[in-house]
């Protein structure tokens, strides 16, 4: 029996699952937007702008979810500053939740700036203050800010899995692959979100096709990492003999295998993207709840 079975569940439930999901999308979206921005074709610009917007909105939602989830939400700032010693910064480089808080904060800052820049470029900002800020973020600065947002997105997509690993909880701490898995899932769901939203911002068929082609690769990576993750759990895998194991199977079936098949068959891009999102959500749902649901006294009782 893994020693993780003696730890207590942190009650990370729906808000955190939603955060992991939204954060993954935002991170993945931001990464893809930055890559398109830096390396892509000019006609892919709408994809980039969509990505930055997804990132900005996602970052704000993420921050909100995280804050609401706190036992004492008004003390959210204690993660950034030492409450007894304000304004000395609060930062622990070895604690994912600490550097993650900073990550989310910076990601929010950069993605919102980039998004404002994009919106200013489109002329959609009417508030003078926002227009001033958005207008400032253009050209090379916009590219740099976007690039940073992209890198931070990569971090946001992946750190959540690392956060789970750096615990003593069953499943999460029983194998090292969760960060990689969440990262892959974040990128795949980010791409899927762009596939769904970018057409509204004027993205071309070609842009979407490229995104979709990349999503296929991301899904393959995700599947591969998932297999490695499950393999690394060893005996702990018996916890999947539960409702959440079924959810995971459904997630893999509908969220990875089905989209891959649809891509192979060149069927509806949007349909596949929706399934990818579903899969990403179910993956997090199953991973969190399968662990949360383990009650430690059952272990001691030999049950």
């Amino acid at each position, binding site marked *: 029996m893994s020693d993780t079975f003696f730890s207590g569940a942190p009650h990370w439930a729906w808000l955190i699952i939603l955060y992991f999901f939204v954060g993954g999308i935002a991170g993945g979206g931001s990464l893809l937007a930055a890559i398109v921005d830096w390396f892509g074709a000019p006609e892919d610009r709408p994809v980039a702008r969509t990505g930055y917007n997804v990132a900005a909105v996602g970052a704000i939602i993420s921050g909100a979810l995280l804050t609401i989830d706190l036992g004492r939400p008004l003390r959210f700032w204690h993660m950034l500053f030492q409450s007894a010693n304000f304004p*000395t910064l609060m930062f622990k480089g070895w604690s994912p939740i600490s550097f993650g808080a900073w990550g989310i904060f910076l990601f929010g800052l950069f993605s919102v700036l980039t998004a404002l820049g994009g919106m200013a470029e489109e002329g959609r900002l009417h508030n003078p203050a926002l227009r001033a800020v958005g207008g400032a973020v253009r050209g090379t600065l916009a590219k740099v800010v976007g690039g940073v947002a992209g890198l931070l997105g990569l971090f946001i997509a992946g750190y959540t899995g690392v956060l789970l690993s750096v615990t003593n909880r069953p499943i999460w701490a029983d194998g090292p692959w969760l960060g990689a898995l969440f990262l892959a899932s974040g990128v795949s769901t980010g791409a899927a979100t762009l596939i769904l939203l970018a057409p509204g911002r004027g993205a071309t068929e070609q842009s979407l096709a490229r995104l979709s082609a990349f999503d296929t690769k991301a899904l393959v990576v995700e599947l591969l990492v998932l297999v490695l993750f499950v393999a690394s759990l060893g005996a702990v895998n018996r916890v999947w003999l539960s409702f959440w194991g079924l959810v995971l199977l459904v997630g893999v079936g509908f969220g990875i295998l089905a989209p891959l098949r649809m891509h192979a068959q060149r069927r509806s891009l949007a349909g596949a993207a929706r399934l990818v999102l579903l899969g990403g959500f179910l993956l997090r749902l199953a991973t969190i709840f399968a662990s949360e649901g383990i009650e430690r006294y059952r272990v001691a009782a030999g049950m």
Partner: protein
Amino acid sequence: MLVGRRDFLRLTASAGAGTAIGGLVGLGVTLAPAVARAQELRIKDAKTTPSICPFCSVGCATLIHTVDGKIVNIEGDPRSPHNEGTLCPKGAAIYQLHVNPNRATTVLHRKPGASDWEVVELEWAMDRVGELIKKTRDETFIEKLPNGKLVNMTPAVFALGGATLDNEFNHVCQKFWRGLGVVAIENQARI
């Protein structure tokens, strides 16, 4: 030596993997010992009154801490040769005998046949109980048995309780009833 062992660098080194990722530092944060900002000691300015546990018969000594006449803490008296400061779970819960929203604090009266209590005045209820005791005593008093034995008693009133109460209560209780001629006086000793 103890401090050294707990030094942060040693800590992460023994934790093994921690240092592998560069920049694993804390800004103004260490894991070294510090004086925590704890809440103030609850009994700092409390008055201490010696008492005894009211549960079982071991007679554990307790100390009651009060602040402005309010009980803030009750714990074992370490001087006691019986309990040396220790208590059982019931003794440790004496506080909740006192500070407890479920405590009854009003006098209740139920008229014969009524389906509800009424809250009544303490003095009125005492007067009424006094009247009832006198009525029952006067109606049932036996001076002599049919065989001529002088007994001066009534068997019609039953007084129960005392083993959870003070010696002084027991004296007052039995003197009251025996004085009136009531002999059916009992407590928990027999059950």
